[in-house]
């Protein structure tokens, strides 16, 4: 049956989240934009307290047991949307297992899940990050050069990773961990790619640089260098064998399928914040969208607003559908990439238009609109650019592999 009502459980969860967004994010957004890489501890502590109280990450939530099962992904996208509505940069600083945790959930053994994830339910705030991209390869994840060499009871990792979101928080600011993708057999291509866990404090790993970015400046984007970084053998998630040629990579892809709707939700939170603020401010100048009038009778600004709203809603419904499918364990690769593509486009368009519609005030740093435009753009770039996600969709609908459609 087709229905669009928000489940009561989700609604309750959102009340807390909306409070956080209003109290701890909106007022702080500009400060952390202007003080790049400063950690928003106020927000972190509030979120961490909630993690400790509920015993679960506010973000991972993909495969949860218990009462709320069946709503995990739906809850997740709502939570992420609302936090990003508060502030997308601060949201990305949220403590917990995050993307690294999702990789552990997707590919680790039960023992590994316990060993690595238990810390995210106790003590001080912690982060887990994921290190995939390298300087010479962007979307081409199969081309990574970081190596994992077996040496007795250890793996020894060497290489350089970039674009590690929250890398500094995971490795320096907390007793967190990093999931690193490295190859155990450079000749094996994707089949040789494996995920390894490097815990904070491990010798041989260091944060080499924090990137200075267009937006989401509260979030740290780290370059991480691994030099003879020695980790226990069973820090390899899953199996070391290069048997199934696509399993290691499939693990990575499963992680992306799971997180793309959340990335879409984050984008759409920014877009909603923009639409709401633009409408509120233009209403002061007498501009109101007349939904009952035909298109030919609208002003140009009304039509812009209408298009923004329609696009925003389209992106959000696609996201809900992808989440709904995930909660039902339905394969949702196409839907995940669709909502990511659409959300990236929508938030880019909506925030860029929002700046224009407010005129000089939109362009000024006195209002958050210009910041949201800068924050927004990341969503068309990370966790698969718009182009990569179009490729994912196209391959699925056409029935092609990466050989038929490059």
């Amino acid at each position: 049956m087709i229905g669009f009502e928000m489940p009561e459980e989700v609604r309750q969860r959102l009340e807390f989240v909306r409070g956080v967004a209003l109290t701890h994010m909106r007022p702080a957004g500009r400060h952390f934009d202007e003080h790049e890489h400063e950690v928003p501890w106020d927000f972190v502590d509030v979120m961490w307290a909630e993690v400790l109280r509920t015993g679960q990450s506010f973000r991972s939530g993909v495969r949860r047991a218990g009462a709320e099962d069946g709503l995990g992904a739906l809850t997740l996208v709502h939570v992420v949307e609302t936090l990003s509505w508060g502030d997308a940069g601060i949201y990305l600083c949220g403590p917990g297992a995050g993307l690294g945790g999702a990789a552990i959930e997707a590919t680790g053994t039960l023992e590994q899940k316990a060993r690595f994830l238990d810390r995210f339910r106790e003590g001080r705030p912690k982060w887990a990050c994921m290190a995939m991209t390298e300087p010479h390869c962007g979307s081409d994840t199969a081309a990574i050069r970081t190596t994992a060499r077996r040496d007795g009871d250890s793996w020894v990792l060497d290489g350089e990773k970039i674009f590690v979101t929250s890398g500094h928080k995971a490795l320096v600011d907390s007793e967190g961990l990093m999931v690193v993708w490295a190859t155990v057999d450079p000749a094996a291509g994707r089949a040789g790619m494996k995920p390894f866990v490097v815990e904070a404090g491990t010798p041989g790993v260091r944060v080499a640089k924090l990137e200075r970015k267009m937006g989401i400046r509260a979030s740290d984007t780290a370059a991480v260098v691994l030099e003879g970084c020695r980790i226990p053998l069973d820090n390899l998630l899953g199996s070391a064998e290069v048997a199934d040629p696509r399993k290691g990579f499939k693990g990575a892809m499963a992680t992306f399928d799971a997180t793309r709707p959340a990335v879409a939700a984050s984008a759409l939170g920014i877009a909603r914040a923009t639409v709401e603020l633009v409408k509120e401010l233009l209403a002061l100048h007498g501009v109101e969208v007349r939904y009952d009038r035909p298109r030919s009778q609208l002003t140009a600004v009304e039509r812009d607003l209408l298009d923004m709203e329609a696009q925003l809603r389209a992106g959000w419904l696609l996201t809900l559908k992808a989440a709904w499918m995930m909660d039902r364990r339905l394969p949702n690769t196409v839907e995940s990439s669709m909502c990511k593509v659409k959300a990236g486009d929508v938030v880019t368009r909506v925030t860029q238009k929002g700046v224009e519609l407010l005129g000089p005030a939109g362009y000024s740093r006195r209002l958050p609109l210009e910041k949201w435009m800068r924050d927004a753009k990341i969503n068309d770039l990370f966790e698969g650019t718009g182009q990569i996600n179009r490729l994912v969709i196209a391959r699925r609908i056409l029935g092609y592999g990466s050989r038929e459609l490059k």
Partner: protein
Amino acid sequence: PDEGGALPEALTRAGWELALLPASLPEDYGGFGERSAVTGALFAEELAWGDAAGALALMAPALVAVPLLVAGTEGQRRELLPAFCGEGYVPGAAALLEPRPDFDPRRLGTRARREGGAWVLEGAKCNVPFARESEWVLVYAACEGRTEAFLVRQGTPGLEVGERERNMGLHALPLYAVELRACRVPAAMRLGGEEGGDVGRLLDASRVAQAALAVGVARAAYEYALDYARTRQAFGEAIGQRQAIAFMLAEMATEVESARLLAWEAAWTIDQGREATREACLAKTFADEMVLTVTDRAVQVLGGHGYIREHPVELWLRNGRGFAVLEGIAIV
């Protein structure tokens, strides 16, 4: 049916046997179900996936029946609805659109004024489906500062059905220009009687219907282009193996899916009994643009072959362009 400009009778007969309309009318009025805009949207998409003109023909009875159900008086419903629940297909006609670029359904040029026990209608309508074939024509007019609808019986003096419209697309659908010249309608034949009807809800339901139809047309074009891209060879491989074509198809798929969800949500909002003006507006705004883009891209995927009438994609583009232009030709 596009080239001949006529609908095969077998189509309407077969379509009628699906019992679209009786299934959405309560037993009291001869049906065996209740109205669901969501179900209507699903039907509309599927039918339009087959053919937009055929879909509009099969949905035409609703043009009179749904307004009666939603906004008619109990008497109007009991009198008129059972006729739509019989064995055979009975078309309905709604005269909303007017021949002006600044047409606005809430500011109609056609006017109704009260004269004693009757309403007198004056004005010009266009693209009225089945205006000649239908027993009842539901005429929308400005009345006491708002839009109201009037049930006008075929043959009423002053209801002048003009020549058949000749449009770029939808050739198989009978659409007519209609003039109302001092057309007198008994007072009781105003939809909703003395209190009038909530025409705003009908306009919303009409927008949703057209959005769903647009999704069907666009999906047909997308699927045809997808299939073509997989089989057509050029430069030693299928044209779908080139990113330019493949990305176009990925975007078409995304846009069709987006429009479908927007139409569903708007339909669902109607079924909840809530005000759906905003949702219907967003769905139609998105779908109007989407169906044009997607059908145009489908022609593009076929290249020169898309321009030839042997393939259906150029027809879908012509039909697709109609959605932003025509209003009130369907309802769920």
